[in-house]
């Protein structure tokens, strides 16, 4: 069962504030979703199955390129010294 304490923990690790309404509604809805995916337990835990069955090989990386970014949001948040400003840690 997903309790309100569990929900608060999940919200904290997901970095999301929940509204009063969501705190009431979500435990039951999440519980039902988890019950639904619980059927996966029936599957074997056979470690011999290759988890990456894509046929595409991802080994041809392009070279890094240095380009000027024109993202306004980033530049707007830069300090005069060129640092990105964030909230206080403590």
């Amino acid at each position, binding site marked *: 069962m997903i309790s309100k304490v569990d929900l608060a923990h999940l919200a904290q690790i997901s*970095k*999301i*504030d*929940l509204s009063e309404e969501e705190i009431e509604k*979500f435990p039951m809805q999440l519980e039902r979703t988890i019950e*639904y995916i619980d059927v996966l337990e029936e599957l074997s835990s056979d470690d011999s199955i290759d988890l990456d069955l894509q046929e595409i090989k991802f080994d041809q990386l392009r070279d890094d390129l240095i380009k000027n970014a*024109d993202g306004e949001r980033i530049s707007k948040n830069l300090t005069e010294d060129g640092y990105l400003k964030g909230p*206080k840690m403590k």
Partner: protein
Amino acid sequence: MSNLYDLLASEVVDGIKEGLFTTEEYVCSVIKRIEDVESKLHSFISLDSEGAVSSAKLIDRKLREKEKIGPLCGIIVGIKDNISTKNIKTTCASKMLEDYIPPYDATVVRHMKENGAIIMGKLNLDEFGMGSTTEYSRYGPTHNPWNLDYVPGGSSGGCGAAVASGECTVSLGSDTGGSIRCPASFCSVVGLKPTYGKVSRYGLISYANSLEQIGPICRSVKDIVMIMNVISGKDMNDNTTIPSSSITINGKTKKLNVAILKELIDSCDGSVKKTIYSTAEKFKEIGCEYSEISIKNLNYALPSYYTLASAEASSNLSRYDNIRYGFDLPIDDYKWEQYFSTVRKNFGEEVKRRILIGSYVLSSGYYSKYYLKARRLRSLLRLELLTLFKQYDLFIGPTMPILPFKFGEKIDDPIKMYLVDINTVIANLASIPAVSLPVGFSNGLPIGLQMMAAPFEEQKLIDASYALENTINIRRRPNLT
């Protein structure tokens, strides 16, 4: 001549090149159409009519000066609002990105423009592509053009409704678990989810990046081919793409071995089942054999899909921290953790639910119970399907297990909503191509046939779709007056 907004992409290109009408005349006809029906449908999040008219004038001038224009000469395209468009707002139908203007074009958008297409605007979706009705859009839902009281499907619901109603000639959507095929089915248009790796995802705002692909939604199979040949191929900005051969309309279907998936047909509504069986009979008319087969791992597909998609969503959406993207909140007076969680409460309910589930299945203790099991199932399913593709060319079944439904019917019950994706998630899990083709109506509501093929066998899907389209010949335009 019929209304210009009614024409298929191939007819628009021919008409402009033969001088039957100008690009500007065609664009103005589509704009007039949007003015007439948009208040009923709400397909668009943002419109760029002025930009479309200037692009049209430019194309007309180039044509007069005998300059070369690409194969999509003048065609109006609508872009799902989770695909980046330079200088046009791209919101993902989320409050978190309500003011986000991308500084670059997605690769698919660049290809469309370079080949002569005109961007008309950005189309509505469920927030970040999470949903099957557009009811989770923060800008309000899109309505189904065949019956305004019904959902258009999702998440690319704006694409389905706009193309079906003539608000644009073609559109680009994205498909993570059925988001192209579901609205294609509910709005009676053609939608193709390509093989994973065929079309670049560069500029597609990620939700579950191991599952999603960009693809076309159009009114004819021929138009799908035109768009696919422009957007497919290797892209250095998306390392999962590979070079691919072009697709053609050849009119002759080789004899294909077609299998109806028993699990999909057994669980669908009566009226849908009836239409799918009568379409299966049409395969005989086009010279194909069909039989019915069962797939062992299908029962686990949807739970695996929601486990993987939520896990990837919780990771992908962690970037919305208000420093690089997000809601505009000054940082002063806030502590580190509190700042991010305050900003991120602006996600909609469904997005929050999926992030929370994603965090849950990735937590220690649950990771091997859910996430790893889902990954294993994904591999088993793909292996099973690839083995069967040695014997069969196509798997067919209903795209959606039910007819389009009314607004509000499933919105309060996430599991009920998830269950409508049960037939479509298979292709995303197995990374194979799948198409939804309109094949009939029941009580005035559209029914789509889904066909799936082996990886990179889009040509087989197109051959069968084109032959069936010519055999079935269904009504194409909803009555919106």
